[in-house]
């Protein structure tokens, strides 16, 4: 029992170490992404991470904002303070829900797709083929995805924030009797620049986490289709848990 726990703890440390080395190598290769050979790969990954995710992001962000506004609005109405839903929704969206919801959606959609793609490449010897051709798999596969995550996550998170706040405004206008102008006035009055910046900073970290976990899981996929499925599932689970933990730590760091 103790042996099993010990072995698993060691395995976690080992995998974390390998993932960190891979991440360092990917960061070191970022300058190569500005060359003609890699620029197209980065743009393609940015398209997949950002543009292709906008549909689901829009729906989730809109309803997140609407639910937030409704829940807080109904409580505030008991005290005749429903006009304050603007500040409640904007602060919660900017600080927490925007980056958090974006992180979860990107992990579940883009992260799992990355793990499945690289996992399939691993089990079908495509990664080995890259090694033999002296093409570094980290530079060829990880760095473009990492750059795409770092650049697109803040943009998508900003978009999530805007849509979420608009969703809250719609509920305020239609169900709580708070005009959209009053809602926006209240939202901009109480939300600070710091809320936006910390949220965007979080989103960058979440992007790094998703890219690292997904690529690492993909590279270590084994045993064919079952292994690829396992890598995909682990990517989503590990990304979710890490996003939650890191999200809390960042909040703790900036809002004591």
């Amino acid at each position, binding site marked *: 029992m103790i042996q099993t726990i010990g072995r698993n703890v060691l395995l976690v440390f080992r995998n974390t170490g390998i993932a960190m080395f891979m991440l360092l190598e990917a960061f070191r290769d970022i300058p190569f992404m500005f060359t003609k*050979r890699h620029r197209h790969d980065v743009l393609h990954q940015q398209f997949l991470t950002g543009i292709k995710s906008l549909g689901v992001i829009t729906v989730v962000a809109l309803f997140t904002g609407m639910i937030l506004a409704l829940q807080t609005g109904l409580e505030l109405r008991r005290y005749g303070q429903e006009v304050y839903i603007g500040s409640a929704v904007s602060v919660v969206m900017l600080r927490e829900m925007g980056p958090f919801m974006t992180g979860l959606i990107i992990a579940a959609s883009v992260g799992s797709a990355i793990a499945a793609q690289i996992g399939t490449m691993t089990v*079908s*010897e*495509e990664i080995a083929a890259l*090694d033999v*051709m002296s093409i570094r798999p980290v530079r060829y596969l990880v760095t473009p995805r990492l750059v795409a995550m770092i650049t697109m996550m803040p943009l998508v998170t900003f978009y999530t924030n805007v849509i979420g706040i608009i969703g809250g405004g719609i509920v305020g206008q239609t169900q709580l009797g708070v005009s959209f102008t009053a809602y926006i006035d209240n939202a901009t009055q109480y939300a600070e620049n710091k809320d936006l910046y910390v949220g965007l900073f979080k989103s960058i970290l979440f992007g790094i986490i998703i890219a690292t976990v997904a690529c690492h899981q993909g590279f270590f996929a084994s045993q064919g289709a079952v292994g690829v499925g396992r890598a995909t599932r682990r990517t989503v689970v590990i990304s979710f848990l890490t996003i939650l933990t890191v999200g809390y730590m960042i909040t703790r760091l900036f809002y004591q």
Partner: protein
Amino acid sequence: MIRFEKVSKRFGNAVILDDIDYEIQDGETFVIVGASGAGKSVSLKHMVRLLTPDSGRVIVGDDCINEARGNKLDEIRNRFGYLFQGAALMQWLNVGDNVGLPLRMKTKLSDEEIDQRVLEKLEMVNLGDAFAKHPSELSGGMRKRVGLARAIVTDPEIILYDEPTSGLDPVTSRTIDRLIDRLRVELGVTSVVVTHDLHSALAIGTRIAMLYEGKIVELSTPEKFVKSENEVVRSFLEAQYITTRGDWEKGM
């Protein structure tokens, strides 16, 4: 020249290579045969350091590849082309981009020069019209030939073939055999072929090594290989209906 010096490899409790020694000369087509799981592909992977031995050394030219790192490893690997068993083509790239991948990533050649070189190699494998197709649109034999075109696009000194004819019909298999032989004759490349297709091995090999239970039980020319008195070799030959001991002749 590739030399295995007392190379051993285990996976868990299974001994795959047991203190193996052999040498592959420049310009020859060295064929490794054996049953499934005998360690043929494992041997091949040691030559390009996709695997490292538990003990022993693998020498390529003057360099020990299992001790090489970084640029030195790249330098040694650049001497190789490798045809993987399933061709290992990048599924999202078309045939032209797959074949041109090593040139695009490692050289400063212009796109036009790369396309020209790719077309030349594709024509060598009779796939000049497949440039824009994707791997999913190709048959198994065509994929292997695209893999072969990619393996030779950098004009390597040594080409490694992992089961080049497995899963292919006899006619396509012989086409691949002829291509391998043509590369040796016309370009003078050293070839190492892993197969359990003895017909193919006898047709293209200049020497054949038989792996069994981690050891090389026979290493000889095709002419001597068919006459071998080794029980393992005999049963392997007879399983593929090659029973001739004295009158076998090499032919393509």
